């Protein structure tokens, strides 16, 4: 299945891209996607724990099972205000 992955701020700089479409095995969860990305992006691999995720623009736990067409973003520490 295909999901859209978005990258923001320091994660975009680290990944060298702002969005992409990825093919994942059916039933993959957020944690599985993070492991894939951590194998590609050294910054992600260095983090002590997976970054918080948003699925379809909602904060979502790592155990969230992804659906085809989902929009997924891992969020660097937010700094609004």
């Amino acid at each position, binding site marked *: 299945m295909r999901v859209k992955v978005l990258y*923001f701020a320091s994660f975009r700089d680290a990944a060298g891209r702002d969005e992409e479409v990825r093919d994942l095995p059916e039933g993959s969860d957020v944690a599985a996607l993070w492991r894939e990305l951590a194998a590609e992006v050294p910054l992600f691999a260095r983090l002590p724990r997976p970054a918080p995720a*948003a699925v379809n623009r909602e904060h979502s736990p790592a155990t969230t099972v992804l659906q085809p067409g989902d929009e997924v973003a891992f969020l660097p520490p937010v700094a*609004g205000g």
Partner: protein
Amino acid sequence: MYLTTSPIDLAALLREVRASDGALCLFVGVVRNENAGRRTLAIEYEAYGAMAESEMARIADGLSRDFPAVRVRIIHRTGRLEVGEASVAIAAVSPHRADAFAACRAAIDRIKTTVPIWKKEFHPDGTSDWVDPTEGRRS
């Protein structure tokens, strides 16, 4: 709409007061010239736009439940801001002052915690970096 790329119109927020309101508490976050001991020339705010909008709507809904007498307006700016410019503004209007203060304070605290917005500081030496509040570089 909670996000804007234009300068925040603070005067418009002051006009949010209704005839039944006795108190307005306005909070304005401003780009300052220093953070964690380093000089700042400007800040670029970046948002995950659609999600930031829905998170701020969620915060506004939560405030309506927690402070039923208070009406809250929230505006957050994105893009490059110079020192002295307003990055965020919250107006809380209410019949009485206690809950206007409380709702305004809760709004900015929640915004800083959950809304996907990031900021990059530009320094006089030409360098820039993304602010990570979890590293104690709070602004």
